[in-house]
């Protein structure tokens, strides 16, 4: 091979590598990105069974039920619709009634959302950004 050919083949290999990496990134984005919904959005959303989503809203007042052991159930609401959520584990410190939360998981066959993680806000001033914005869009946002 001449020097030029050698150089071109090295550059070609580098570009092929980058193309491969880009393909991997877009494949993974399609597979692994999870969508955010509020309870009211769920009627119009088409979800495959077992699809992982993030469900956000306010913890509905009077719905927190602590079951046996580490089981907890509560309802997430956007003040109009609400969805029942089941979770086993430790709730975040700032998890309270009528506070914003984001839960991540998928719907079980009984229509209850089974969460494997529950996020509350980071301090007492702010609510998760997605929840606050969605509440604003729906016109039910009430700043403290």
């Amino acid at each position, binding site marked *: 091979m001449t020097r030029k050919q050698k150089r071109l083949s090295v550059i070609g290999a580098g570009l092929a590598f980058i193309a491969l990496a880009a393909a991997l990134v877009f494949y993974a984005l399609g*597979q692994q990105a999870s969508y955010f919904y509020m309870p009211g959005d769920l009627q119009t959303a088409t979800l495959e069974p077992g699809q992982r989503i993030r469900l956000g809203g306010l913890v509905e007042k009077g719905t927190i039920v602590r079951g046996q052991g580490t089981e907890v159930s509560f309802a997430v609401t956007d003040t109009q619709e609400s969805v029942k959520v089941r979770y086993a584990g*430790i709730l975040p410190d700032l998890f309270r009634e009528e506070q914003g939360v984001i839960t991540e998981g998928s719907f079980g066959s009984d229509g209850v959302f089974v969460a494997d993680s529950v996020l509350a806000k980071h301090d007492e001033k702010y609510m998760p950004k997605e929840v606050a914005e969605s509440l604003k869009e729906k016109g039910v946002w009430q700043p403290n």
Partner: protein
Amino acid sequence: MVEIGHFALVLALALSLVQSVVPLAGARGGNGRLMAVGGPVAVTAFAMVAVSFAALTISYGRSDFSVENVWENSHSLKPMLFKLTGTWGNHEGSMLLWVLILTLFGALVAAFGRNLPASLKATVLAVQGFIGAVFLLFILTTSNPFVRLVNPPMEGRDLNPVLQDIGLAIHPPLLYLGYVGFSVSFAFAVAALIEGRLDAAWARWVRPWTLAAWVFLTGGIAMGSYWAYYELGWGGFWFWDPVENASFMPWLAGTALLHSAIVMEKRGALKIWTVLLAILTFSLSLLGTFLVRSGVLTSVHAFATDPTRGVFILCILVLFVGGSLALFAWRAPGLTAGGLFQPISREGALVLNNLFLTTAAATVLVGTLYPLVVEAVSGEKISVGAPFFNLTFGLLMLPLLALVPFGPLLAWKRGDLAAVSQRLMAAFGLALLAALVSLIFVDGVSAFAAAGVGLSAWLILGALTDLAFKSGLGAVTAPVALRRFVGLPRSVFGTALAHLGLGLTTLGIVCVVSMQGERILVMKPGDTAEIAGYAIRFEGLEPMKGPNFTEERATFVLSRDGSPLGSMHASKRFYPARGMPTTEAGIRTLGFSQLYVSPGDIQDGGGLVVRIWWKPMVTLIWLGALVMMAGGTMSLLDRRLRVGAPSRARKAVGRPEVAAS
């Protein structure tokens, strides 16, 4: 007091403007007296920002609640350390720290850069001064920490309890020293483009600064990771949170820069690429600052959301990234291309390193920005989490890690892959053995985990092989080898240590991810939980009182096979000033592994929800980072690379360096 700080900050802005114009004009016009202005002005600007920062710190120390910033983020009952560190536990103060460190680097360039060519030094200082001026303007117009309250309240609103921790004293300063340290490499790159001159000596001046910034950034990220691990009570060491990614991207690009600068210094190749990388690294630092400070993300780091700030930082970002890339596009074609080399060579290995690291950084960038882009375009809210990053970043890292041991053993210009493979046979055999041993003798280890252990061992043994080979072990008698070993250049030790640290971190990650044990259960006083052969008995809860919080403290007694191992505590705290509860996990280090107990809700009837993790080899993740830092520091101490000691370098300009033996 704060008025002095405010005044000093305005002076610093004026000085930075002088610094960004006068030396540059001098350098362009060949006026030595104008160029000489840069140094003293840079030092004075640093002194002014230091005065300003000290004024704010003193206000925090005195709990002066007539200052709005102090009132919002402090409390008179807070321990003194947390009062002082609270200075940068908020948006305004942390930006002030950012600028303090930026001007510090400007002053350091002025102090250590005596041997730099006058016009290069003047241009570098001008670029630094311009960055400083823009950020000082940002602070003074949108984020002034020195605003007084007309009616001073009696008590402050306290700092977010999560931040009331020793981690706040260490993590942000280290992180910023790293982030902002890359501004020096950036300034050198822009200066080289303006000057239109780029040689091996340039790389020799840039490398120590990049290395120093890299050492700090490594420490900052590791400290942040450990802090999140023990403070947030989720037991994770890395969450692929956008804010973490924001600090990780400059690290990846900076690591690439570190390696490409070696090629440029030793071989005069990859010049244009190195300049581009220096620009990209600092651009990623700025992007990180934008992501964290603008409020486009939700995180513990997003202290407050104020749209004007976001827009201002976005403008800064566009100005610097766009400006420097435009300058690059305009001037780079005029720079002479570097030397040629065979694909199988040290240069080739370093190019491969750069290819992997920059692609990995781009992957993280795409994953971090994709949700923002999708939301801006379609309004849909999506999140890209750990599964995406583990898949893409993980797949990219595996081949890179496997190739690392080859790099330092390959010769410059034309390497002999067969000979290097032969030298690495012993390391490969032992790594294979490590994988097999862990597969056979450790319970519940998957083939994948065993391969990970083997990969880590390969990295560690590869680093040791490098040292052994370079000191001639086996080829010469032991005493000679020992003498050679002691006489090896420090940068060789630096490389080996950094790669060894990488191996340790990998080992820690592999062990935790694949072999950790977890239990969630309700415990009543007297109950015992078993995990990884340890028995943990819950003794009970007792109320305690801290300076600015109350807590329910849980005591656990630890034992193994009946022999007691002492007790550990975990607690649920409540900070009344903010009405905010926090969880303090109980952590016990056993060898390199840790037991981690996180308390949850207290149930009716005295039961406590407890989450217990067994984290095998977890401390290696951060110890590995410390070893990497030690490696970087070792390289920095190399006589040939010491900051501000390029007097020998000057002689070496244009002279091809003999390969480090």
